[in-house]
């Protein structure tokens, strides 16, 4: 009989880490225990020390989670695009153009080439292009699948575009909060493939998430605003939306954002690799682009090594000037947010 035993969590993790995801000892209940314990711990730490946890988690996990995501995306990239050629062309073009545009806004502003007078309109246009790009990808993906009519995406996209134009900054803030949850969707899709017997348990665990969020809301809604008297703390509260939502406690906003970020990092760095979604991390040959007879194993290996080097550079940057590096990171990191869209669609 399976028991709900938290003390066995390390052994369950170890079993998962050794690639024994199908090990019968790792029951659904142990999996649930790990997920719930992770969620509770994240919520508790984020509520208790929001600013400190924000600094620590970004410092430790921002770089590595991008490396794991890049590794994962390489795993999902087919060696030959075939009939998905146009889909990937549009996906990569969108990632490149949208990321370049996103980086150009602050770059032009700090280079005194743009006053930032139409900042809100620029953000609204960027959000609109992003929404239309995602809608185009969804429609293309829908056409590849028989018996699927995803045309409903068009009116939904236009509704989102409309909401975006009513409050572009609020819409961007919504993306900041919703993006971490996309990782949970990736995990669900992989559980369906690798551990279908865990899917129902996982869904029940997901129901616990709004309860945790509601508990945080109840506990922190009336807490005084966080002291943001230095540049870094101010930047963190702004990132969480303190200026856009002045009537909401900045403690609650930062805690909620950190909580979601911790879940995001947890899924990409621990959960997905442990259930085998990214393949054996150090084996380049597990990547289709490297394994294929006409593939590029050396190029892929070099790319991953460069990625590790970038993680090291990011850590060094954080240690030298945390505030500046954090700003630069969250600007460039838009690329990985965008990249999640086409690869998630490939999983649907």
């Amino acid at each position, binding site marked *: 009989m399976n028991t709900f035993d938290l003390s066995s969590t390390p052994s369950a993790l170890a079993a998962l880490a050794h690639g024994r995801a199908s090990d019968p000892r790792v029951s659904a209940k142990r999996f649930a225990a790990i997920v719930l314990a992770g969620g509770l711990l994240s919520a508790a730490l984020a509520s208790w020390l929001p600013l400190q946890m924000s600094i620590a988690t970004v410092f430790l996990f921002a770089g590595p989670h991008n490396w794991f995501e890049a590794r994962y995306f390489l795993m999902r990239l087919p060696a030959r695009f075939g009939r998905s050629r146009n889909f990937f062309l549009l996906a990569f073009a969108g990632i490149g153009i949208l990321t370049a545009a996103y980086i150009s806004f602050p770059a032009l502003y700090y280079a005194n080439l743009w006053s930032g007078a139409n900042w809100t*309109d620029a953000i609204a246009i960027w959000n609109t292009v992003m929404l239309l790009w995602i809608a185009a990808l969804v429609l293309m993906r829908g056409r590849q699948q028989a018996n699927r*009519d995803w045309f409903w995406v068009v009116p939904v996209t*236009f*509704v989102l575009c*409309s909401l975006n134009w*009513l*409050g572009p900054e*609020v819409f961007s803030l919504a993306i900041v909060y919703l993006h971490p949850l996309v990782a949970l969707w990736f995990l669900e899709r992989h559980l369906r493939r690798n551990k279908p017997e865990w899917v129902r348990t996982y869904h029940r665990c997901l129901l616990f998430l709004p309860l945790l969020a509601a508990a945080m809301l109840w506990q922190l809604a009336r807490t005084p605003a966080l002291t943001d008297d230095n540049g870094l703390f101010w930047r963190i509260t702004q990132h969480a939306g303190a200026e856009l939502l002045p*009537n909401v406690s900045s403690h609650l906003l930062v805690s909620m954002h950190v909580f979601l970020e911790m879940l995001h990092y947890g899924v990409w760095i621990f959960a997905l690799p442990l259930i085998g979604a990214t393949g054996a991390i150090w084996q380049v040959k597990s990547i289709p682009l490297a394994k294929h007879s006409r593939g590029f194993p050396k190029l892929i290996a070099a790319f991953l090594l460069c990625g590790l080097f970038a993680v090291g550079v990011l850590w060094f940057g954080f240690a030298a000037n945390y505030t500046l590096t954090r700003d630069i990171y969250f600007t460039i990191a838009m690329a990985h947010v965008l990249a999640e869209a086409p690869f998630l669609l490939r999983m649907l």
Partner: protein
Amino acid sequence: MKRTLFASAAVLALLASAIFAFADIARPKPAPRGLLYSGLTITTDSKAYEARLIISEGTLKHLQEAAARSGGDNAGLSEKIMHSSSRTIVAGVFMFLAISFAGIWFARSSEKRHTRAIAAVILVAAIFGIGTIIVRANAGPPGYIRWQNLPQALKDGKETSGGVSIDLVPGDDNLKLIIPMRKSGGSGEE
């Protein structure tokens, strides 16, 4: 005669244009701008010689922050939307496109489950819409309800608490406290 008619017409035209141009009517006073919403307690003190306004440090800090922002981008979300006509137009165009394409999707969707799902969505939206109209969205009881017993409470030396909106007006007038009061049996919302 022609001259008289022409002069009369010119005077009438001038008068008519004055109606539309509001002629030399003085500019209206700028409306007070909502700065902060807080709570207010009114109480009496038989030993005090001066009226006192007591503000907590936290409220003062929020007030300072709000006042600092008031010079620039202080407008709330709804104000931003109302005052940005170009963005509202674009939002309207997208909403029009959304409804149009939703209609196309509905028309070409032959599957019964789609039709049922859409019917369910429309029904739920209609129920929420009617419900919103009936209950007047999520508005709580009007603020003046809390102040109705203020005169009696002042006589009895009791405290009265309620919400207060701190507004910013130009000029250097004295502080003014406006208490919403309704005559009993009046035609207001009661």
